[in-house]
């Protein structure tokens, strides 16, 4: 980040060397991005596109559920990202300590990351069925009336978020384990000699020194949370009604209805939203890192 290359030095590679990469980049990333900006300004039925200015954006923001979808997106992103960070760190501490069957337990935590999201979604939908699902059946035998995990509008979004955390926490744990492994044991040894308790060691040594890993986990899970779609779609399709709709599912519904221009405008909005939230966040985190 801080290293600067002298401008005068000529690149050792000739220009044509970059052309294949530039073509791939241009075709796969530049063209779609620019064309989606154009199509978001049109009424588009895939064969003809009629320029209508900012009407799509106006429509998207007057969509009664956009505000709700926006709010839900933020709630979902913050909940999943927060829980993944906290649980990931705690699990990483546990799985780097000297416990029984450490390798096996690490595998167990990482396993859900490898399973298809849609598969997980369908499995949990069955498990969270209000009367026949294993969760509520178990609760019932304990005498506790189980809630409608996915059918109660106040609960649906959080139920999906919890499943998302369960699925994604393995990756966060893995990153934290790598971060913890990079901390020199000398610090802990010195702290122990000074008489620091376990808790003090965690807050004074582990937490500050694992910051780079924390930044990665928070950024990745926040971006993932903001644009999350597959799990929500597999489990609730934004329902009941619109109660677990997020921006991505609102966009998908517009696409499904054949409003291609409108849904492209939604994608542009989602892109802008992620940039607006993530950019200052990473800048702030990186500055802190340099200061320390």
């Amino acid at each position, binding site marked *: 980040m801080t290293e600067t290359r002298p401008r005068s030095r000529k690149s050792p590679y000739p220009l044509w060397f970059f052309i294949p990469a530039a073509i791939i980049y241009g075709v796969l990333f530049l063209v779609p991005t620019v064309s989606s900006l154009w199509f978001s300004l049109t009424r588009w039925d*895939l*064969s003809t596109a009629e320029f209508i200015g900012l009407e799509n954006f106006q429509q998207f923001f007057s*969509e009664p559920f956009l505000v709700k979808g926006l709010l839900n997106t933020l709630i979902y992103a913050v909940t999943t990202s927060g829980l993944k960070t906290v649980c990931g760190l705690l699990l990483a501490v546990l799985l780097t300590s000297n416990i029984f069957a450490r390798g096996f337990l690490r595998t167990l935590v990482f396993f859900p990351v490898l399973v298809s999201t849609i598969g997980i979604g369908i499995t949990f939908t069955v498990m969270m069925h209000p009367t026949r699902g294993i969760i509520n059946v178990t609760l019932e035998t304990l005498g506790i009336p189980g809630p409608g995990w996915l*059918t109660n509008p106040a609960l649906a979004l959080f139920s999906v978020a919890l499943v998302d955390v369960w699925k994604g926490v393995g990756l966060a744990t893995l990153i934290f384990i790598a971060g913890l492994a990079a901390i020199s044991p000398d610090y802990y040894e010195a702290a122990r000699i000074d008489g620091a308790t376990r808790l003090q060691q965690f807050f004074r040594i582990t937490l500050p020194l694992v910051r780079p890993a924390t930044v990665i986990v928070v950024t990745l899970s926040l971006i993932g949370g903001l644009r999350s779609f597959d799990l929500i779609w597999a489990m609730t399709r934004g329902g*009941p009604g*619109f109660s677990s709709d997020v921006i991505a599912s609102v966009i998908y519904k517009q696409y*499904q209805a*054949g409003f291609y*221009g*409108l849904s492209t405008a939604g994608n542009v909005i989602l892109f802008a939203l992620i940039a607006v939230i993530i950019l200052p966040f990473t800048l702030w985190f990186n500055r802190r890192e340099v200061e320390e």
Partner: protein
Amino acid sequence: MTHRIKLILAGASALLALVAAGPSHADTTLSFLIDNNPDTVAAAEALVAAYQTKAPDVTIEIEQRPGGGEGDNIVKTRLATGEMSDVFLYNSGSLLQALKPAQTLVDLSGLASQAKVDEGFKSVVRADDKLYGVPFGTAMAGGILYNRKIYQDLGLSVPKTWADFMANNEKVKASGKVAVAQTYRDTWTSQLFVLADYYNLDAAVPNFAADYTANKAKYAETPAALKGFERLKDVHDAGLMNEDFGAASYDDGLRMVATGEAAHYPMLSFAVGALKQNYPENLNDVGFFAQPSDDAATNGLTVWMPPALYIPLTSQHTEEARKFVDFAGSVEACKIMVETNAVQGPSLIDGCDLPADVPPAIKDMLPYFEAKDKTTPALEFVSPIKGPALEQITVEVGSGIRQPADAAKLYDDDVRKQAKQLGLPNW
């Protein structure tokens, strides 16, 4: 890609056939795109098999696509990119209008088979005074499937008014059974109380469809239109539904009404096909009646038209495709399809009579069709606009999350968006 591979394979096999059979007239391969509903597949296969005995030089390859919104996208995308199959199956009515038939499809007005096709059906595949499709399957109706055993056991009679219906429901509830099955896991099933109420709406406000299309009438401002939403709420508020209505699926609903767990299930009559397949021993226990109205004298049926076969302008084999589609619209083909599948309602081809042993649910529908003015096509067939969010809105009303008046207003907004996207005048 697979399309191309198929073409190459088809070409290779055609070449082989030529070499083997010696020089003769060239074979043609038609591609035929249908949805993956088992009933559709069975009917399409029977149709193709029958046609190939008549035209052995034409090979027809059936391709399947998913149904619902995903399938709509596939059809629209393939049409727009010029990759559409030679013949394809798609909805009639408002969804067809969204394909801009005059610009994308082959005019089928001149087919010999059109002479026997029902006028009502022709009106839903027409654009700019030309016909673009031939019917695939029979008409169906929206209304309420009911369990005849429960009706017998409790001594109930088929209700004509909403008050009678609710009274029946209370008796069913008192007997410990579910009065009305609702299945909001498959959100589309939540719309029936609103959509099937269109006969009643049309009876009360005869020019609603035209005014609605012209942006002059609104659901929220038309009390008769609001009724559908209110009925949904009535059923929820009276506690008549199955406990797991939010998580139950269409299949659960069919099981409940077929096996007698529930007395009623508001549904389209195409469900008879699935009932025949999944619950054949219960098929005779299920009956059907139109959505009850306020006045017993104006009780009638809201009718859905079947999908149709179309030919895209991009087809390389228009002549052969026309011949195949012409056959599909004939009385002979209609009879083949009726024998293959459960009948969902009356046939739309003159001379193609239903077999005598149709299931009771279908028999219950026929008097409405035989009487005059007892049927009307659903709103989505007389107006090009149908808001895409209706199913979410009806889930909300049916779950008690939103009030009917508010829901109707929200739906009007949704409809405005659809109309604007279609570029309709006055919006």
